[in-house]
């Protein structure tokens, strides 16, 4: 059973556009919702994370929107750039020193 469902699998966005990636979860004990960016040959890098006590968090061009009642969260990349082309993973974990459960990833291509 997949605990975190991520969509779409792939996404093509024009330079300057908005990239939106969605994730849904089932486990109401999840307390931490990070997004990771991964370039080929590299480990995943923490991009931005949110906890369920807030509905939105913004860091530069990256925004997480969180809907606790719907058990959904999404990543918005504003003014998308070719350098943003990478695979993005959402993840979730319960409170404390616990491991992450990952979505299947979204391959983003930003074209000029």
């Amino acid at each position, binding site marked *: 059973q997949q605990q975190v469902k991520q969509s779409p699998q792939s996404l093509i966005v024009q330079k300057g556009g908005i990239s939106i990636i969605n994730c849904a979860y089932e486990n109401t004990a999840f307390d931490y919702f990070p997004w990771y960016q991964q370039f080929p040959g590299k*480990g*995943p*890098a*923490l991009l931005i994370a949110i906890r369920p006590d807030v509905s939105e968090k913004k860091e530069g061009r990256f925004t997480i929107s969180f809907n606790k009642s719907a058990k959904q969260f999404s990543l918005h990349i504003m003014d998308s750039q070719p350098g943003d082309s990478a695979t993005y993973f959402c993840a979730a974990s319960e409170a404390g*020193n616990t491991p*992450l*459960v990952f979505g299947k990833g979204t391959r983003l291509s930003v074209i000029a």
Partner: protein
Amino acid sequence: SAVISQKPSRDICQRGTSLTIQCQVDSQVTMMFWYRQQPGQSLTLIATANQGSEATYESGFVIDKFPISRPNLTFSTLTVSNMSPEDSSIYLCSVREVGEAFFGQGTRLTVV
């Protein structure tokens, strides 16, 4: 944020042999997590390593195949034993620090 160093960064190994991957963290952490990322796939948790006790393995992963050591609060090793081509993956270690989750750059293993 925690800085995680993994060695080797990549290796090509013969089937039937073993490879030990090292993970060094720049701060003391209670738990260290080992993940596998098969080609084009998401990250799957192999095991959780707690200093001073046996590692806890996820379903589908066994200690004989993936023995883990955790001799102190900053270091861990994962051994991939009796390798087959199906073990070709990226292996990543991860830690939680101040609630956030960080990853090393990974070890890209190719078994021939």
